């Protein structure tokens, strides 16, 4: 879809991008990563012609980008940057609706689209629609910036560190959320970051740059298992095994979980405990309440519910869209060797075992 061929950008006295050749397929989430000043932003800006190329060519679906008028090209491509650049004299809604407005969409459609995008980025339209940019926090502003880039539903999105100002926790959920949005909307995304964890979490392919040159262009898995040379190895860092876990969805490693209802007599659990060493205890609606092990059998209580050690699923359980890295960190935190997998309501779906994670 996007293809760069021997692209070079030379600023007076400085080659920022050097004979760069790569391709981004339709629907790919391509993350460009590299140290500061390696030419990431320059590469991105050449794609939407904010910066003219010095040599080489860039094509979109085989058409040279210089065959379009610049505005025509840019309206097919969403653009979000770290410094956001919201228009301070326009409300959030008008900021998001600016491109649709320039494309003469009708008012009701723009309004629907704006609310839909605010929802998508977890901003309550009722609260944020009529606010002005100066009333927003840095993170909220960045989310509005992303919404604005998505407004006219462009097939391609260029994003230059769009989550830079968001706190780590919101950032992580936004990354996961955004990776999902991308799959759902089938966007082709070129995304710049210098945060390797971010790249691994969201990319379908990672492009590592150094001094304006391509060092490695591959899937996150391959980059982690076979980094091209010392530079990439060092860039990934020493905890790459752990980083890899953040690519693996927990549900893929889920096993069936032995369980009893809280009203079941304790005796009936004895057999299963002997077999599994522990059991999850569920409420009648399937919610996880706690667990039983050999010690609970000695308590002398009548029912499983009375004998169990209770747990708070919000603290100890793993939800369905978690990664193995999150599952592991829950287990370490709670000091448990297996964690229940639950849905949003806390209903048990299965369990994840420490042994399986270590073998993954």
């Amino acid at each position: 879809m996007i293809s760069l061929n021997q692209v070079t950008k030379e600023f007076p006295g400085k080659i920022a991008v050097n004979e760069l050749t790569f391709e981004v397929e339709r629907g790919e989430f391509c993350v460009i990563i590299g140290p500061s000043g390696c030419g990431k932003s320059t590469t991105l800006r050449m794609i939407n012609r904010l910066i003219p190329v010095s040599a080489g060519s860039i094509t979109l679906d085989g058409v040279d980008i210089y065959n379009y008028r610049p505005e025509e090209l840019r309206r097919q491509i969403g653009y979000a940057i770290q410094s956001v650049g919201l228009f301070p004299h326009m409300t959030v809604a008008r900021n998001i609706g600016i491109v649709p407005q320039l494309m003469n969409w009708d008012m009701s459609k723009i309004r629907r689209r704006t609310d839909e995008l605010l929802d998508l980025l977890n901003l309550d339209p009722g609260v944020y629609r009529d606010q002005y940019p100066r009333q927003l926090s840095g993170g909220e502003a960045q989310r509005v910036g992303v919404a604005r880039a998505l407004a006219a539903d462009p097939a391609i999105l260029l994003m230059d560190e769009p989550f830079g100002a968001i706190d780590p926790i919101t950032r992580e959920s936004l990354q996961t959320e955004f990776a999902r949005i991308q799959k759902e909307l089938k966007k082709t995304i070129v995304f710049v970051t210098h945060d390797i964890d971010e790249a691994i979490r969201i990319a379908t392919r990672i492009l590592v740059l150094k001094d304006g040159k391509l060092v490695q262009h591959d899937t996150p898995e391959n980059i982690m298992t076979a980094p091209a040379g010392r530079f990439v190895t060092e860039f990934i860092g020493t905890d790459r095994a752990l980083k890899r876990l953040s690519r693996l969805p927990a549900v893929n490693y889920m096993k069936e979980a032995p369980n009893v209802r809280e009203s079941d007599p304790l005796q009936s659990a004895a057999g299963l405990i002997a077999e599994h060493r522990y059991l999850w205890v569920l409420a009648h609606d399937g919610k996880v309440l706690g667990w039983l092990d050999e010690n609970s059998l000695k308590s002398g209580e009548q029912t499983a519910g009375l004998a169990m050690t209770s747990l708070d699923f919000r603290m100890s359980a793993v939800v369905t869209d978690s990664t193995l890295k999150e599952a592991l960190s829950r287990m370490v935190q709670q000091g448990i060797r297996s964690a229940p997998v639950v849905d949003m309501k806390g209903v048990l779906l299965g369990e994840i075992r420490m042994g399986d994670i270590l073998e993954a």
Partner: protein
Amino acid sequence: MRRLFSIKKVPFCAAAVGLAAIVFSGFVTFRPNRIAVGKAVFLNQTLGSLWVAIVILWAVLILLSALRIPGRIHLFSTGLLSSTLILLLIATAARHASLTTQDAGSITRTSLGPAFWILLFALIVILTDTWQRSGKEKNLITIMGIVTGGILLGMLVSGDLDMLSIMREYANRKERFSGELLTHLALAGSSVGLALGLGIPLGLLAHRKKPLYTPTFFTLNTLQTIPSLALFGILIPVLAAATLRFPVLTDMGIKGIGAAPAIIVLTVYSLLPVARNTYIGFTTVDPAAIEAGTGMGMTRSQLLFRVEIPIASPVILNGIRVALVQAIGLTAVAALIGAGGLGVFIFQGLGQAANDLILLGAIPTIFIAVVVDSLMGGIIRVVQPKGLG
């Protein structure tokens, strides 16, 4: 126990100065004829008993500025009292004038004296201070000011003030006055208009092409430091020579003296505030907003009209405001080179040592400047985009 007194510095000082003026200087000046040496008439010597009201209300004003009174009541009563006092001052002087000047043919003159001006000034200071501190009540105080202005206008139109010397100067030049007033407005207005046409593009250019910034503003700053009289003087021979060389200019009505050099000079002076504020206004636009806008496919002109101009407009309007006020004042000087305007009366008055004729030129000039200034202030508040400031 709560303290009874709480002195508010600005109103208290102003009121105290006013009190001293009442005691030590003449309220009006009496002259046997228009240009004779005057004799001071103190407030308590003025005819008609209105002066008693002034003295009493002034005492209340001082008390008000020293007593501890809840904010709103204080603002409101000070505002009302000061407005009333302004009207009373004028009424007292006018009444004294008509009681001493039996008929319009009489050549005796009653002019406003030092105490009058000091009291008026003190009241204006107090009103301004009240307006500034009034916060949410601003509109109320503004309305009070407008009502006072209305009553004053009524007094002026009804002929109550006709026997004051300044009004008698006016009566002798009614026709001339309205003519010069229009000339004044036309000169100031057209030069600021020209300055907008030149200054806004210049400021924008200096913003877009940074190398142009230094030469542009170096020139404009330098021009601004030349005294206006000197600039008028320089232009007389320059334009005279130009008309000799190019007779077409004469056909266009351009001469070394008159409107042409005046408009040139006034335009030159207006250029700096307009161009500078345009430049500053455009510089306040976040470059990231321009980058994001361009990146999303906005054209140059869409960015200019939908983003840059709205954001820069309050600052640019402020520049226009400064240019207007400055031009209205400077136009008075343009009378020296035969351009006309209210300055005509000022220079005539200076020539004849007739103070009231000077005032006939000066007071309307100041008045127009103040009105235009507050009008522009209002406009700026209204058009200021909500998300800014």
